[in-house]
């Protein structure tokens, strides 16, 4: 079982998504348990994979027994295994959350929703696990197609937002594909490890430079790195709550993972850092993202849209960590991938819960909700404090590493911008938190006195995932030292 785990983790959700259509025709109610069981299995598999990687080292899984340069190979090292756990665990938690949301927002589409949801998870897991650049492209497109369809289910402008995302996403994917083509001309190989061996002799070839440029721009569109983020706020604002929670917490992170793979596995750190000043440029772009995301987040009146802009800033943090190109910064980036996935999932799920109960997500709508939904709002506040980087919460630890990394690299300006952006995010969040806890009640000045607010907590199937994420944020922060020593220290590329 464990020997076949790398392929099973892809096959099980893929088969289940088609099985889901058939079962859905027969009994609609069985779809939800099927999804939960499937994703539960992939959580177990991903834990077993990480365990194997920690004990035995890198796993090479050859599809059909073909040797690497010819056949497709799945390579799992500490980096993949780490991202796999994040993706599978978050997909599992959000699947539990999805039940009530789906029943409320689009009850007639349950079967198809879960089918596409499973395809989306398959695609994300596939991107993470594969060791072949073309295979990665195929999974990238599976993911994107699934998410276009899921976003289009949403309210208001959702189809238009999804169409704009489709156009941008296709440009990104096509750039990636062109990058693959140029590398293939130069080396005749598609295997990442093989490319890593062949490329160092060709670093001065123009085709290789072009390939690198196409890769970085293509992936930057996919992960919504400023200034290529324009599709994100609309898409995540109008998407159904479940979809925005899942896409926000995992898709951008997987995009960053692809960028790390391309920059440090396919190309050597020496190429990405010294020969081309790509990390330098990325650092400045990412600082732009942090500041811009923070400022625009303050300007929003809709909580989901505000969270989308904060997500753009968070992507900036992660990229800063990669771009300072030292051990501290890289550790911070990977920790931030983990913590931010939890934070964003928690925030978007809490916003979705408010949507579920009140039907709107404007900041005004959060007024006095601590009386009505105290647990949900407590979770929201914990996640918000973590996103700001307040000490006991997880976000503080990753930001600490990021700032140390920037200082180690002698790039004080990045450290300053990081803190400044945290302040901007703090302002954005305190506007919401103030509304939740301290805003005067609407009726207070009418002379009616304190109106009775009935406690009306989020349904249990939504509340448990939200609280799980909040607990994760509380607990994982304290274990960040352990996570670094067990997993992350092995992911830092050589030469840092």
């Amino acid at each position, binding site marked *: 079982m464990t020997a076949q785990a790398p392929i099973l983790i892809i096959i099980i959700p893929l088969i289940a998504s088609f099985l889901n259509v058939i079962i859905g025709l027969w009994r609609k109610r069985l779809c939800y348990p099927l999804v939960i069981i499937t994703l539960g299995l992939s959580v177990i598999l991903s834990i077993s994979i990480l365990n194997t990687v920690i004990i035995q080292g890198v796993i090479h899984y050859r599809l059909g027994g073909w040797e690497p340069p010819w056949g497709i190979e799945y390579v799992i090292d500490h980096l993949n295994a780490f991202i796999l756990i994040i993706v599978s665990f978050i997909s599992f938690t959000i699947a539990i959350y999805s039940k009530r949301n789906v029943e409320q927002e689009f009850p007639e589409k349950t079967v198809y929703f879960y089918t596409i949801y499973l395809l989306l998870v398959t695609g994300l897991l596939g991107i993470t696990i594969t060791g072949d650049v*073309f295979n990665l*492209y*195929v999974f990238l*497109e599976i993911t*994107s*197609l699934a998410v*276009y*369809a899921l976003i*289009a289910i949403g309210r208001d*402008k959702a*189809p*238009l937002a*999804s*169409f704009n995302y*489709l*156009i941008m996403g*296709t*440009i990104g*994917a*096509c750039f990636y*594909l*062109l990058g*693959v*083509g140029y590398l*293939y*001309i130069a080396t005749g190989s598609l295997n990442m490890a093989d490319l890593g061996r062949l490329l160092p002799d060709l670093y001065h070839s123009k085709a290789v430079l072009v390939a690198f440029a196409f890769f970085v721009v293509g992936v930057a569109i996919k992960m919504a790195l400023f200034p290529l983020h324009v599709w994100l706020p609309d898409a995540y604002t109008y998407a159904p709550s479940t979809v925005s929670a899942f896409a926000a917490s995992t898709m951008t992170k997987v995009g960053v993972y692809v960028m790390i793979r391309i920059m440090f596995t396919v190309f050597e750190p020496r190429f990405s850092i010294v020969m081309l000043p790509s990390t330098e440029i990325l650092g400045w772009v990412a600082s732009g993202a942090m500041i811009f995301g923070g400022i625009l987040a303050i300007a929003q009146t809709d909580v989901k849209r505000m969270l989308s802009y904060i997500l753009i800033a968070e992507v900036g943090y992660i990229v800063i960590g990669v771009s300072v190109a030292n051990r501290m910064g890289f550790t911070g980036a990977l920790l931030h991938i983990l913590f931010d996935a939890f934070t964003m999932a928690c925030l978007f799920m809490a916003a979705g819960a408010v949507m579920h109960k009140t039907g709107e997500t404007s900041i005004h709508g959060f007024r006095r909700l601590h009386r009505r939904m105290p647990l949900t709002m407590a979770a929201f506040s914990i996640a918000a404090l973590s996103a700001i980087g307040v000490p006991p919460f997880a976000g503080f630890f990753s930001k600490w590493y990021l700032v140390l990394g920037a200082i180690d690299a002698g790039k004080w300006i990045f450290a300053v911008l990081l803190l400044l952006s945290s302040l901007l995010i703090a302002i954005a969040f305190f506007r919401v938190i103030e509304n939740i806890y301290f805003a005067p009640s609407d009726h207070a000045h009418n002379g009616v006195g304190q109106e009775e607010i009935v406690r009306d907590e989020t349904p249990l199937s939504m509340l448990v995932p939200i609280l799980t994420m909040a607990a994760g944020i509380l607990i994982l922060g304290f274990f960040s030292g352990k996570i670094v020593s067990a997993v992350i220290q092995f992911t830092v590329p050589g030469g840092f």
Partner: protein
Amino acid sequence: MEFIIGKFNYWVYIILMMIGFYAMIAKSNLVKKLVGMNIFQTAIILFFISIGSKKGVTIPIIQEGAGDAVNQAVNSARYMNPLPHVLMLTAIVVMVSTFGVALALIIMIFRKYKTLEEDEILESLRSGEEN
């Protein structure tokens, strides 16, 4: 001149790609954007097909087949490289499905706004907000 004629197909690929790219970004009609996207993707197919082909060679099937001939070293200079073509089979599937999803989205948009011109849609959104 040699530079242009010798790499004729690559020039065509770049021109096509830029036409598609322009249409995706500058056109305001959603269907035209989609057509641009299709041209863009087809240009990439042309690029991949070009890198796999050679002059004066045959398809990669070993004709002498039976017996000893199979054991002889295959002279790769005599055959085309099939791999880019195979990659494009997959890429075509991806492109067709992208196109399908995009058309479905366009239908949804048309049902909602009764138009496919982006500026008209934005205008109706704006007037909707005022009401």
